[in-house]
């Protein structure tokens, strides 16, 4: 494949949002928008509305909760039982603080790993960085990239389509 895709540059977040909506409406599906800060509605505009981050974190939290409680119970009632102030071996109200802390710990670690994992990060190489103007994508420029794998993609037609969105510039993305 000759190119990774075509990329249009915008100066304003509103322009990018509008362009993304237009591109999606024109049938493009393999596209991505890049911005220096989160823009509300942008992911939805390119048809990305659901992510598994929250359920994964929920599972992490539940695992942490079970681990914390089981750990305390096992230490105090199984592995090293001894009587403290006449309380039962499994004096469960005393397990709550550690159970809570491990719930938070596991859920937090999971949210970091889920976010990075689903985003496929760390990623040492990505074609979008081949466009020189993209260096400003982390400061003050907004980009829309339509990828060549898109079934509707056609080097000439897509270029023309991007031009109609009033971008500052359009560029080819080397693979």
């Amino acid at each position: 494949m000759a190119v990774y895709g075509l990329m249009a540059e915008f100066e304003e977040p509103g322009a990018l949002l509008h362009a993304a909506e237009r591109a999606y409406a024109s049938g493009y599906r393999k596209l991505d928008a890049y911005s220096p800060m989160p823009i509300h509605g942008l992911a939805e505009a390119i048809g990305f509305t659901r992510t598994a981050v929250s359920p994964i974190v929920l599972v992490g939290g539940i695992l942490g909760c079970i681990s914390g409680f089981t750990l305390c119970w096992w230490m105090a009632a199984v592995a090293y039982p001894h009587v403290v102030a006449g309380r039962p071996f499994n004096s469960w109200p005393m397990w709550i603080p550690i159970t809570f802390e491990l719930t938070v710990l596991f859920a937090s670690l999971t949210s970091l790993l889920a976010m990075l994992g689903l985003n496929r990060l760390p990623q040492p190489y990505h074609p979008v960085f081949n466009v020189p103007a993209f260096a400003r994508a982390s400061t003050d420029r907004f980009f829309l990239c339509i990828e060549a794998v898109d079934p509707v993609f056609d080097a000439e037609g897509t270029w023309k389509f991007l031009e109609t969105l009033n971008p500052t510039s359009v560029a080819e993305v080397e693979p």
Partner: protein
Amino acid sequence: MTSDPVETQLTVHDPDGPVVAPGHSYESITEKIGAIVITLRTPRHWWIGAGIAFLVVNMLMTAIAWLFWRGVGIWGVNVPIAWGFAIVNFVWWIGIGHAGTLISAILLLLKQDWRTSINRFAEAMTLFAVACAGMFPVLHLGRPQVFFWLFPYPNTMGLWPQPRSPLLWDVFAVSTYGTVSLIFWYIGLIPDVASLRDRAPQMWKKRVFGILALGWRGSARHWFRYEIAYLLLAGLATPLVVSVHTVVSFDFAVSMVPGWHTTIFPPYFVAGAIYSGFAMTLTLAIPLRKFYHLEDFITMRHLQNMGKVMLATGMIVAYGYSMEAFFAYYSSDKFELFMFKNRTTGPYGPFYGLLILFNILIPQLLWSKRVRSSIPALFIMSLVVNTGMWLERFVIVITSLHRDFMPSAWGMYYPTKWDIMTYIGTLGFFSFAFYLFVRLLPAISMFEMRDLIDKKAGKQVVH
């Protein structure tokens, strides 16, 4: 880019002034904050400040080395006052850490946009304060080389830690707090180090920031997941921060010692933690904005708001003190009554007087708008509250232990020079770490500032 609408909106909604000075663009924000790290020469005041702090770190190392060689006998601890400076400083430092998480997590959930320019360095402050705090219990162990016995792991002795003890809860609370604070801080840094990667003039800086940025490219899909993860972390950190000082207060409250055994301890410890934390944030923010000319981002509005939070939490702390006194009176327990009399008029009485002066009386000046709008007054106030909160920890730990039930078991506590060197040393460690942070990483969150001016300018619909 940020023309009239910004100014009109800011003046309408913010009677105390703007949260970011008008006239800034995405580029100017990124340049101003990023330049401190990647392009500007290290300023002379940095070398002087960091140099002094580094000397103090060496003093800490000396004190710790001597402690490892000779044991805790070099400290002033004794029986009955086995907890001494180490635990005073532990509780003080961990309290200071609380403001960082409060600012970054709780104020995020409450949609307080003034948190944006102070959350990054407040989180860094949290990390360094927790590091200082974490040192003390380990140094206090007597046999610090076996600190890992605190953690549950299968061992040939067949021993396990005691999960009924608040001291073990502390191990879990503090280590969880440190880890979660680090995750929160790092997640916030990823888009910012990506900006630095793209802007750094030298290749080696691009490489270092590139590795830290993990290949972040600002994709809409990435931001979508990122924001969910960030919000979830804020939701998790919020109960966590409240739990940490609660568990620390359990170390005292669960015991039977008069002066410790009270149910007011958890809420009043948490309020005191936030109180001292905001004081420390002010202590750091005022020189930071001055020396690095960040007045546009850390505005009077931020300083005033921090003053207000200090006033509010200070009042909760005052309520805690009065309830302690009331409980002692209402219990009719002679040990509790004696404890309170001894605390106020005994050998450590003057410290209690100073504590009331520093934590309750002087901060009442914050009711005055003139005091809240004066930077020198706020700076002095922050130092007063930091000192007051340290005195509070001192009074709680020392005066409760030194005269408990039997007069034959009473004693006095005097810190030695090693105690003082270790304490001052952690202040140096904290400052040195903060100097390094300001030099090596963006001290203000750039992407959140871009988002903020956007929202202020009405370019985005705020959901």
